């Protein structure tokens, strides 16, 4: 089964270790390789990107490796890609035109 790694038990996202497509069931593993959850991908998520492990509310923090890495700007359902289309920096935003370019290059699907 395809896998994603949750870097800290408090995280609400996991990082894909392979490319996944919509409908794929993903095993969520801990840093010590234990399977802790299975999540169904609601859209294509490529290697190195993050899948939401819970329903994340608008304005809720995204937590990876126990650290706040950004804030949700809309509801992110469990199984969706958490990335530039629905998360913003708390420090220094990527310019809008660059975000559009990233979304285009990654062909991010509407979930």
């Amino acid at each position: 089964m395809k896998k994603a790694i949750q870097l800290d038990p408090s995280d609400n996202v996991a990082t894909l270790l392979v490319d996944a497509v919509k409908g794929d069931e993903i095993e969520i593993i801990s840093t010590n390789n234990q399977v802790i959850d299975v999540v169904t991908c609601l859209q294509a998520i490529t290697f190195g990107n993050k899948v939401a492990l819970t329903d994340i509310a608008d304005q809720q923090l995204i937590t990876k490796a126990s650290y706040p890495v950004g804030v949700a700007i809309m509801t992110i359902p469990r199984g969706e890609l958490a990335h530039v289309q629905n998360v913003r920096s708390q420090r220094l935003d990527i310019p809008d035109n660059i975000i559009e370019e990233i979304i285009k290059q990654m062909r991010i699907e509407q979930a």
Partner: protein
Amino acid sequence: MMSTFMGFGRSDGSVGIRNHVLIMAVDECCDGIARAIADSIDNGIVVTNYNTCMYGGNEEMINTMIHTGNNPNVAGVLVLAMGCGSIDPEIVAAPIRVSGRPAFSLVCMKQQGTRATINQGKELAQQLQQAANAAPRVETPISELIIGVKCGGSDTSSGIASNPSVGRAVDKLVDMGATAIAGELIELVGCETILRQRAVSVEVADKLERLIHQEEARWHVDGAEVETMSIGNSVGGLTTLEEKSFGALSKTGTRPIQGVLQINHLVHEKPTTPGFYLSEATHLCGSAGMHFAALGAHLILWTTGGAGFNNPIVPVIRVSGNQYLLNEDIDIDASGIMRAEEGVESVAERIVAKVGSVAQGQQTNIEEVGYSYCSLYQKDQRLETVLRFKPGC
């Protein structure tokens, strides 16, 4: 792992894991002389100032040269100058002698030229090698080690595999009583709140926030932007600048921050008690190696996607989690984490064991094979003045 190593005892009480002789050129014009002398002995390493041959403005770099000469892995030093510049080689040699190490100096213009300087230098280098060979072997606990931590050539695998593994190894080594030092303050922009919580005191917290802010001001000048995050980073999965920073932070482990070691022309702060430290060691790889040498590090843990720098004074243990870029240069293969075949804890245990064996004398995969240049970075004193930064403020 073995709890002790047989190190090389120094007069200042430190113990090295290597036994090098440094041939230092305080100006680039005597670099060739230095290399000819270093080639005549087994353990010679050349360190050359390629900045201007003036003293004014280069004081911070000269300070780094002095402290590099006092690294535990260094047995003795020969300092060379052409003689037409304004850096007296004794500015470097004299403070190294204070540590008890033999330190000689030669000025080419006083030695009847290049050939005569090389011949005289070879004799002095022989004396230094003999002194190195006579260094007493001292059984030393692993807890005496000072370990630099650095990343470079980072990719998606770094934040998942090599950085968390090194971070866990750093925690284990600190728990054993060792000292670890990270730098790259520019990579920690956005991590200030977390770092403050790890600081042992408000003074340390304030100092680290101030030094990160200063480093941000040096590198993020309006109208002269230096790249911080690329589209490639984002396509690879990094959503925000803080996510990138936290990925880099994870290699520092979780233990309390004992202090932030400043590097400037007045001070070159050293760890005072065991534990984890931040420092002003630069994010620029080659120069970071020399900063870690000057901070007194015995070896460096270096996380990467693939390849990277290799310092001749301070052995570099390379850790990579990218199975497509792994080659014989990588000491620790962390790619099992990316394939969900090995856990972080297991890789961290292998890293700690490797630290022990390299301290015992085992060479890293490319030690003595091909070294990076011993670059000597210093903050530009003109920029410091424009930004109104004063050392100690």
